[in-house]
């Protein structure tokens, strides 16, 4: 038996994000768990990926966990920085393979809300706004969405579409003229994808110990369920060691429970 503590839910998210990345890809990294996942991938199965950041840092030298997407670790002796408009332009130009996007709400078609709970006229709660989320999600070939899955946070329809997923499903995203699209959703329950025709969210792989019932109970709409449920292979001790000792040793983003 291993004497390494099993992954906590945030660590499982970081691990699943990391596994969404293939070696050699160019990865647009946002703040928080995507940073952890991106750096973990680079230090494990995908050493040849290139990380780019919305504040403009391109391919920084490896170093400490950035505290923000504007942290000097995002442009640590990078060959260059790019202006913001040009950095996002790379997503439209097809130079970025994969990007990550968190949100306060994610709906059954992968639309993301980072703007407002309720409405701007009738505020329940105001969120920071799009930032680069809309840009990345509108332009990048593959976006991986990430969030803590609860029925409130995964409603049938988001209160406000900040970042377009598959809009109303089917071919509505394509018809709107958008590029790329969300390819997966990573939560504490596991990994989801989008059914190719309806573009509805579907269970792809559950985390160890999870069940379809738990996943459904965490969700505000009906999840599509494949015939055979697959499970995520738990991270090896070595991967957990790298995650805990090298990638996020101060547990900036992977402490559980957080705060």
């Amino acid at each position, binding site marked *: 038996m291993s004497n390494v503590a099993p992954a906590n839910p945030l660590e499982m998210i970081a691990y699943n994000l990391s596994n969404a990345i293939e070696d050699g890809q160019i990865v647009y990294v946002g703040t928080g768990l995507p940073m952890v996942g991106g750096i973990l991938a680079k230090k494990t199965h995908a050493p040849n990926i290139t990380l780019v950041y919305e504040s403009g840092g391109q391919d920084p030298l490896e170093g400490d966990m950035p505290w923000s997407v504007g942290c000097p670790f995002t442009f640590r002796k990078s060959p260059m920085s790019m202006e913001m408009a040009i950095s996002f332009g790379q997503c439209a130009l097809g130079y970025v393979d994969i990007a990550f996007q968190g949100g306060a709400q994610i709906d059954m078609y992968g639309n993301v809300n980072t703007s407002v709970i309720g409405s701007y006229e009738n505020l329940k709660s105001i969120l*920071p706004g799009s930032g680069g989320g809309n840009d990345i999600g509108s332009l990048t070939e593959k976006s991986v969405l990430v969030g803590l899955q609860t029925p409130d946070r995964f409603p049938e329809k988001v209160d406000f579409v900040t*970042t377009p997923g598959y809009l109303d499903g089917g071919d509505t995203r394509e018809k709107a003229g958008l590029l790329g699209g969300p390819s997966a959703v990573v939560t504490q329950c596991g990994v989801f994808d989008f059914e190719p025709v309806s573009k509805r969210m579907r269970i792809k792989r559950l985390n160890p110990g999870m069940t379809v019932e738990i996943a459904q109970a965490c969700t505000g709409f009906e999840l599509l369920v494949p015939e055979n449920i697959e499970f995520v292979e738990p991270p090896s001790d070595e991967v957990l060691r790298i995650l805990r000792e090298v990638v996020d040793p101060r547990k900036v983003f992977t402490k559980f429970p957080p705060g």
Partner: protein
Amino acid sequence: MGSQYTNQDHMKRLVDYRDAREFHLRKDRAKRDKRISLQEAVSEYIQDGDIFAETGFSYVRSPIQAYLEMVRQKKKDLIAIGSPMSNTSYLMAFGVVKALHLSYIGVEMRGNDKNFARCIKSKQAELLSIWSHGSMALGFKAAQLGAPFIASKQLIGTDMIKKNPFVKVIDNPVSADNSQVALIPALFPDVCIIHAQKADRYGNAVIEGPAINDIALAAACRKVIITAERIVPEMTIRENSTGTIPFWYVDAVVDLPYGALPGSCPGHYYWHREWWEWLVRIGTPDLDALNDFFDYWVFSTKDQFDFIEKLGGARFINTARQQMEAAQANVDDSLVNFDYQEVIPKRD
């Protein structure tokens, strides 16, 4: 100065390239010593009612000491824009900003900025339009290019487009594919303050590290104040042609070392991370807390040096310098400690 906007409607003025052009044409081109104090620069060039653009990246090379001076001088009725615009939050709280074109307000994962919600809910400040970073960045870039607008694949299909009176969606008339595009008009704020690592006395300025939107904003804005970490001889900039902003865009140059604190300045100092957590986690939950926070940090300081004393004085400055040098791999970072005391407010 001596110039007036030809058009007093700020919604129209923001996208009025002819007005911005006329304003620039009337600017004094002379290559003269433009150094004045921060107090004078804020007093003279930030006028109540201006469309004010945030620069830098929230807490990275942002002219935060100048923003605090705007609070001290009780500037009012500004219209804020920027991408991102985390500092606009406290400017709203103190009545400096009355309305905004929103891209992003917050401090990433460091906590919820409850002041922002409070200002909007109480109608202390009004939301005029909603943007993404990239679409707003294209608006500033259009201005810099002298282009009336730029087409984009951003914003399409969202609810932001319904909350943005400036952007229109049309079918692409000129590319191989005629699918929908969003037209982003060139954006012309009235004024911005840019913190540069180096500037000469005339206003030629050097930005090191991410420029974000600042080079475009320097071209777009009617008035530009440079706060400089260092005033350097003109030949220092000319020697390797490292300038990013030419002197003719610039109205005032302020010699302001530490002007980006409590944010970071690449090449000079790492940020004070606790300060930002104090701000959002302790300062923003209620208005009294925010007033106390600003009494301590702003109203009882007169300049960046008073502010630095409260951050820990020379000891803090040395740590911040070491951390930036280590983060930029200019000193051996295995010898520098990045630990800090995360701010976790007590719960009742």
